[in-house]
Structures are given as C-alpha cells and as structure tokens.
C-alpha cells in the first residue's frame, strides 16, 4: 500500500483514474497545477487505486495525500 502525496501546493485540475482501476508504474494519476504550470502526478508503483482523496478543482497543500494505491 502506498500513499501518493502532493509534491507541492497547487490545484487539482484533473483526476485521471477511478477507484478500482489498475495502474502501472509511472501512469498519470492526477494533474496538478502550480505556478500556472500543469504537472502530472504519476503512480509510484503498479497496483490498484484504493482511494482517491481529492477531486477536480481542489486546492491541495504539500504532502497532502491525493491517492492511495494498493
């Protein structure tokens, strides 16, 4: 099980996965915007998306958990 956290404060502009999806390492999970720049947050490992803790439009802080992968 691993938590995917926000590397920096920003705004979630897209959630690319749903709970239950199988993802491979380096697949895009979330698109985060900071400094007017879009950055994909990728899966740290392969696995199943267990929980999504943010939604489109949310403002998140650094280290907030965004997605839980099992």
């Amino acid at each position, binding site marked *: 099980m691993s938590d995917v956290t926000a*590397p*920096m404060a920003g705004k979630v502009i897209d959630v690319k996965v749903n709970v239950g999806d199988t993802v491979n390492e380096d697949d895009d999970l979330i698109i985060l915007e900071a*400094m007017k720049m879009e*950055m994909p947050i*990728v899966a740290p490992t392969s696995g199943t998306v267990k929980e999504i803790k943010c939604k489109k439009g949310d403002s998140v802080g650094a280290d907030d958990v965004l997605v839980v992968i099992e």
Partner: protein
Amino acid sequence: MLEMVLTTGVVHLTIGNLIMWLIAFLFIYLAITKNYEPLLLVPIGFGILVVNLPLTFLMQEGEGLLWKFYHYGLEWEVIPPLIFLGLGALTDFGPMIANPKTLILGAGAQFGVYVAFFGALILGFKIPEACSIGIIGGADGPTTIYTTVHLAPHLLGATAIAAYSYMSLVPIIQPPIMRLLTTEKERKIRMRQLRPVSKKEKILFPLVTVMVICLIVPASAPLMAMFMLGNLFKECGVVKRLSDTAANELMNIVTILLGISVGATMSAEHFLKPQVIFIFIMGLVAFAFSTAAGILLAKFMNLFFKEKINPLIGSAGVSAVPMAARVSQIMGAKYDPKNFLLMHAMGPNVAGVIGTVVAAGVFLALGR
C-alpha cells in the same frame, strides 16, 4: 497646393520608417497569433508604429504625448520601480527561505551579465552602454529598462526588446545548455521536500532583505525598496487591498505606459543602426553564460554538500520568473517523472531577481 501636400506625413516617409512599420506589424502579429509576451508586444508594437508616422511629433521633446509618458514615466524612474512593487506582491519567497543555500545559484547566474559587459566593450561600446547591454543577461525586463534609461537612453529600444524577447525564449535557449553540462544521473537527483515556512519568517524576509541589500548597494534602493514593499503587502496579510492593487490594476496601468514608451523610443533614426544587431548577439551570449554558470555552480556546490542539489535548478538563477523555473521542472520530469523540481527552482529564480538588481545597482553607481 504644394504647401498642403507638404503638411501631410506621406511625403516625409523614409525607407527606415517603412522598415520600422514592418517590425511593428511583426511584433503585433507575434503577440496576437503566437501569444508571445502579448502584454508587452502589443503596446510596444503600436508605439513603434505611431512614432514612425512622420510629422506626428509624438516624441517631440517637451511637446509630444509619448515623450511625456517616456519622460515622466521612465526618465523620472517611476515605471520600473512600480513594476517591481507589483512583482513583489506576486512573488512567494517561501521556497527560497526554506532552502537558503540555493540563493547562491541566483548569484552565479549573474555571471553572463559580465561576459556580455566585456563583450560589448570589445565590440567598441562605451562603458555606460556596455553596462546596459550586460544587464540583459540578468533576464529582467524592468531592471534592464531602468539601467538603460540611466546610462544609455539611446539604446533603450534595443536593450528592452532584447531582454524581453530572450526571456520568452528561455524554454528554447536553456535546455540544450542544460543537457550539455549535466549527466543523466545528475538530472535524476531528487531533492528533499521543502520545509513549510512560517508566516513570521515570510513577513520578516522583506524587511531584512531591503536592509541588507540597500546597505551594501545603495544604488539598488529604488528597485529593491519597491520590490520588498510589494512583498510585505502580500505577506503581512492586513493590506490585501493594497497588495491586490499593486499586483493587478497598478501593474496593468504601468505596463501600458511602459510598453508604449519603449516602443516610442524606436524611431527609425534611433533604432536602425548596426549596433542593434551587436546588442542582440551580446544579449544571447549573456543568457547562455548565465545559464551555464548557474548549472556549473550547482555542480560545484555538490562537491561540498551532503544533500545534493539537482544542477538543473542552477539554470533557474537567471531571473526570468517563473519561465526558468518551469524549464527546470520540465527537464527534470523528462528524466524522472516522479521528480518535482519546480519549487526547488523557484529559490534560485527569485534570488536571481535580487542578484540582477544588485548588479544593476553597481552599474548605476560606477558605470556613468
């Protein structure tokens, strides 16, 4: 009849005017279709166009409308410091306070300023002119304008355009240099997440900085004072109205006046000289050396620090905020998609602005 014809502008047109029209149209075209610094290129392009309409006397000393904007806005030093006020209100110094040693990268990336300074001297420019050309390498538009107006006002159009065009070309100029000077392993260095910075630290920062910098280089005070006042507005939290105005409405107003004034200095007889080409070449040289110096300094620092710095953030020491930091992020993510350098690169990036202002202060004090 002949008299009437002579009062029209048409018969007074020169080839130079026509060339400047083309440049004006090119700027406006690039701004509209390519979204290339539109906030500046639209007013600059229009300014170029109208000063190259003969007999309008828009730049007539003491009389012309645009001359008044130029004189009271730029020669009286009002506009660039007001832009710095707005930049201060937009800048978050948090990443820099969290990891202060990255500040040194902002100093290293001023190296190109001096390469271009000596380059310009060798090409035959006088010292005040070489100072104005060198400062292009700092990649800071308002500072370049401020310095040039003081030291070599006849070069203003060229240095301002060079600074702003290279700033928007940062994503093209920097990556090849970054690849050349780093190994793949270095590009993949991950940096520890920055610690959160308290509000108190953020409030103290502008106060301490304005004292430190102005005590060392008093000539940098007009830009530095406004920069830090804007930042204090933002961080203190009790004058949201003032910080919003500085960052938005006031910034927009002075951008209009700045753009049209810079454009207005570019009449054919002032702008179309071979030295303008040299200015553009030296500007590019300055940018390249600043980028390289920032990266090499980061690698040098890695020899001493246990916690390694990713050298890709060194190039962000050129003060084009936040373009240079974005380039570091994009390059880093290309080699390791789980690596986030953006915030780490913001440290040297905003430090670069301070470094460029200090360099300009020394030019202003000694370069006359």
